[in-house]
């Protein structure tokens, strides 16, 4: 057979790795044809919604549901008393704590779920909610974790104050855990004897992932067959199935969990919420499907917040800037229940990546988790577990040290970076960084933005300001981050005892197309596009002929889901490995068809060719057909493979960011003049999708750094429960991002990829913040807390005496 097509064209036809293939998902999303949870409509479907507590801390003396039950269309009102006989009035959290499904005697945060009204439609449910009469007795409210640790007020009366919690001994009745990493005494010694020590306290404020689509589910119990189907906004559908089985007693094979299209997750949709449990119970009770969908206020006020870390640090160095030690203490505000979503052994996530990108010989980290009267959560908002906190901490400490040393912060970073030849590098707090080339990335970034030129311009600006020629200051924000993603090795990462592997199952159809199913679930990341590209390169069938399916536990292989940038590092690896199994079998089939020995054929783009005789080949399409139509001795028919991938290590993407900002000293308004982002995520599967992810992550970084927060008053009232006050930036507030890259493949990942969805958020937050702080450095500022909204920036200027 003569081949008309060049090898180059064959590569192009595959649309494999490295090509900016257009997102296959977008055809339906841009036409409004997505299928989200709230689009699901079933015959006879009911709606459930919550009566929520107006108080942050109160005892519940009584609940009267009579008037609510009189509302036409209201069918039932569930309270803790109804759930108790089923043992479902409390549920386990991912962090080893337990959480009330419906208020059991008291409430611990404003917005807490008190009763669940089930009605024929949303309107009746809303009217019913108004009429449930709850008699509250207000209790003293604690919104400050430091106060919580001193207070006699016991928040969690259900816990034995003397008994250890899930992560060891508790120091106080409002204390949850202490978690340590590194060497306490040696670090103290280094700091005590250091030439220079810089010290800073910083509050990384509470915020919220705020996906455009809020959380929700539809539970449908088929009483005849005993099967429960649960559609939901789940970032981890299989884990949800296991949890539902464990707490409901329904056997796992009788539960089918489906995550349809998901409108963003960012960590908000990892955990299990009372709405899921109540919908399932309501469906069992009524025998009808029950839908529960949060509104925006419910979402912001009650389901998983992020951050809320009070961090104190000391960093020591020699006089010429070589860092010798790092100490960090965190007081972590977890709210009323510890519902963080972290691997079991990591109650503070991977906060111990806080030595950052630097070769710091000695370090010590201690985290205290504390209960307060705030909503539970503590999820990783567009980052791997607590990595934004860690990177913010170290990138601020570096700046503070630079000020103490009177040194340029870019230079200080450069002289402390882990060097290329030190990888794999074991950090003082335990992680083994797989690969990196920080100096190359840093030099490229600084050169591209003309760093020296920017500094010269900034000095001139300071002079002009002092001379009264301008009222605008210029800030240069720097940040160099190392992420730790791809959780993770089963030996040290599990959630509720489930190892954090992931999976891919491939079926090749006779005509040379394929379907691959994964244990992950896209929430907008474009898995259907990129995973097909990985496979195209691995198995030689065009990406356009490969369907990627996720999110249905009846069909997808078991996996731990999508968060912490783990999909490409773990499920992407499983995809490549499963693809290689397909290829291995295809090789045998090809050899049989070509009548040569297995080792005499080799893979070439989309075919196997006889070594030394390129005109003799069988395309993958031909091989696929043969797998189904020929009896090949010693080979089973069919062409399928499955791979469960347990990663040997995490992957460590990194990047270098620079932000140039002009700040109006009189109004506190910042203007971002330039934002340059260099990302190294290892092998690049789809550059266009990477760029999109970087834009998204940076925009959420801008949000967090410049205004986005969940704030409470002293009474525990959430002050930022709507998008009027919760800052969600639009295209208007966002600058033009310049993106760039270097490529340092992961040595242990089958295709060298590292994950990129969250890096820009992790690196972006300190970059925006550092730009604000840097603008005021010449006037004596060392640190001010985020979010840098107008009034806080104004206050910094005011405190520094810049308003005359």
């Amino acid at each position, binding site marked *: 057979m003569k081949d008309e097509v060049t090898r180059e064209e064959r590569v192009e036809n595959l649309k494999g790795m490295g090509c900016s293939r257009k997102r296959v998902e977008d055809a339906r999303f841009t036409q409004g044809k997505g299928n989200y949870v709230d689009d699901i409509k079933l015959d006879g479907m009911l709606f459930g919604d919550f009566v929520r507590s107006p108080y942050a801390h109160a005892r519940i003396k009584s609940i009267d549901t009579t008037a609510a039950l009189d509302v036409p269309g209201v069918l039932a009102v569930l309270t803790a008393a109804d759930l108790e006989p089923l043992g479902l009035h409390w549920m386990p959290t991912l962090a080893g704590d337990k959480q009330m499904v419906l208020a059991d005697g008291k409430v611990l945060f404003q917005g807490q779920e008190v009763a669940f009204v089930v009605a024929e439609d*949303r*309107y009746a449910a809303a009217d019913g909610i108004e009429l449930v009469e709850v008699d509250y007795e207000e209790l003293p409210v604690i919104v400050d974790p430091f106060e919580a640790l001193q207070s006699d007020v016991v928040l969690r009366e259900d816990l034995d104050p003397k008994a250890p919690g899930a992560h060891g001994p508790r120091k106080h009745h409002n204390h949850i855990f202490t978690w340590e990493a590194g060497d306490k005494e040696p670090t103290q010694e280094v700091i005590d004897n250091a030439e220079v020590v810089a010290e800073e306290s910083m509050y990384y404020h509470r915020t919220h992932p705020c996906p455009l689509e809020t959380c929700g589910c539809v539970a449908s119990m088929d009483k005849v067959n005993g099967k429960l189907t649960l559609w939901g906004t789940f970032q981890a559908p299989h884990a949800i199935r296991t949890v539902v089985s464990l707490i409901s007693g329904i056997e796992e094979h009788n539960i089918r969990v489906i995550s349809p299209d998901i409108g963003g997750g960012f960590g908000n949709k990892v955990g299990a919420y009372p709405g899921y449990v109540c919908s399932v119970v309501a469906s069992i009770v009524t025998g009808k499907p029950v839908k529960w969908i949060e*509104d925006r206020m419910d979402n912001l006020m009650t389901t998983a917040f992020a951050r809320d870390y009070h961090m104190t640090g000391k960093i020591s160095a020699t006089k010429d800037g070589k860092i010798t030690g790092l100490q960090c203490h965190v007081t972590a505000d977890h709210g009323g229940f510890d519902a963080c979503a972290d691997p079991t052994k990591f109650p503070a996530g991977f906060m111990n990546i806080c030595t950052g990108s630097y070769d710091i010989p000695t370090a010590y980290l201690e985290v205290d988790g504390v209960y307060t009267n705030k909503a539970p959560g503590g999820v990783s908002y567009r980052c791997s577990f607590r990595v934004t906190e860690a990177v913010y901490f170290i990138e601020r400490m570096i700046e503070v040290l630079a000020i103490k040393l009177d040194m340029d912060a870019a230079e200080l970073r450069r002289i402390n970076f882990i060097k290329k030849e030190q990888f794999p590098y074991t950090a003082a707090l335990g992680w083994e960084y797989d690969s990196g080339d920080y100096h190359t990335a840093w030099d490229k970034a600084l050169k591209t933005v003309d760093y020296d030129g920017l500094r010269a311009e900034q000095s001139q600006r300071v002079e002009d300001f002092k001379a009264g020629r301008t009222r605008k200051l210029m800030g240069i924000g720097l940040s160099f981050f190392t992420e730790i993603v791809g959780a993770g090795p089963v030996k040290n990462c599990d959630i509720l005892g489930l190892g954090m592997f992931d999976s891919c199952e491939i079926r090749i159809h006779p005509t040379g197309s394929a379907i691959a199913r994964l244990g992950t679930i896209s929430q907008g990341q474009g898995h259907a596009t990129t995973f097909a590209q990985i496979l195209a390169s691995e198995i030689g069938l065009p990406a356009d002929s490969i369907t990627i399916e996720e999110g249905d536990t009846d069909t997808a292989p078991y996996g731990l889901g999508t968060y912490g940038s783990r999909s490409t590092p773990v499920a992407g690896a499983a995809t490549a490995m499963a693809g290689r199994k397909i290829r291995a079998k295809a090789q045998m089939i090809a050899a049989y068809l070509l009548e040569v020995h297995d080792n005499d054929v080799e893979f070439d783009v989309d075919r196997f060719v006889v070594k030394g005789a390129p005109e003799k080949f069988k395309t993958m399409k031909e091989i696929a057909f043969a797998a189904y139509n020929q009896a090949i001795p010693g080979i089973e028919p069919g062409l399928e493979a499955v791979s469960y991938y347990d990663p040997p290590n995490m992957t460590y993407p990194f990047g270098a960011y620079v932000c140039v900002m002009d700040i109006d000293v*009189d109004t506190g308004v910042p203007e971002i003049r330039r934002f340059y982002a260099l990302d190294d995520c290892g092998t690049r599967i789809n550059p266009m999708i990477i760029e999109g992810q970087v834009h998204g992550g940076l925009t959420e970084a801008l949000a967090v750094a410049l205004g986005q927060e969940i704030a409470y008053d002293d009474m525990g009232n959430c002050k930022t429960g709507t998008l009027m006050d919760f800052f969600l930036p639009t295209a208007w507030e966002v600058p033009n991002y310049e993106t760039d890259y270097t490529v340092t493949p992961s040595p242990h990942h089958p295709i060298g990829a590292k994950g990129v969805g969250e890096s820009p958020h992790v690196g972006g937050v300190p970059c925006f913040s550092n730009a604000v702080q840097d603008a005021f450095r010449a006037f004596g500022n060392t640190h001010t807390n985020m979010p840098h909204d*107008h009034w806080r920036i104004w206050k910094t200027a005011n405190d520094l005496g810049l308003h005359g």
Partner: protein
Amino acid sequence: MIPAAFEYYRPKDMASVLAILEEHGDDARVMAGGHSLIPMMKLRMADVPHLIDLQDIGGMSDIVIDADGIRIGALVTQADIIDDAKLTAAAPILREAALQIADPQVRYMGTVGGNVANGDPGNDMPGLMQCLDAVFTVVGPDGEREIPAREFYEAAYMTAREDDEVLTSVSIPPPTGGYAYEKQKRKIGDYATAAAAVQIVKGGGSCVSASIAMTNLSDTPVYSQAASDALVGTAVDDAALDAAVAAMLADIDPSEDNRGPIAFKKHVAGVILRRAIVRAWSRA
């Protein structure tokens, strides 16, 4: 975020509107663009058992410009204002202000009448209309009457309009001189941290007349006669700017919210007014 049940009316003429208002009293309310009222109903902060949609009432969507001035129908949207070239030529401050209200989607729905009748201190048009010395025409069971914008606002959500009256149009004397609408906000779609509407007439190098009103710095818009007076007769130099700002600060009474504390708001109000005056003066 689901409103309580309500009865929906869409009458074709004003007489029917007034009849429904009369029948249901406090329980009835008119709706124009709905972009202030519906959110309040969804939050169940406004209880409106009888909702009267004004969209089918004719004759309230016109912009008339003649020698006597400008007459804007209550149902004219913010987007209409932005798109009307003749209006922009006659009173450019209207367009400059409308472009700083909300976002395009809201501006297609939000009306001038709703914005000025709402009585929310955050609305931009009340201050703007005070600056322009507009007059609001309302119609009720006893017929039509006119209420000057500068006398319309009593407290947050409390205005001189009676519950059974409907605002039909806004009349503005032809503005002259330089203008500026300056607004600081946290993001697109946000109400003002501080906003200033300024019109200045220049004659022979000095200020002949000035009009200044501030938004979201008290529980009503603030027309500051004193600040305006501080500019008249001056060359709008630094001393005059200082005096105008000081006079304005004496007239406002901001409260703390998520935008910041009082001291910040006062400071920003001063900066914003100063900038507005400078820009208006440069255009005078």
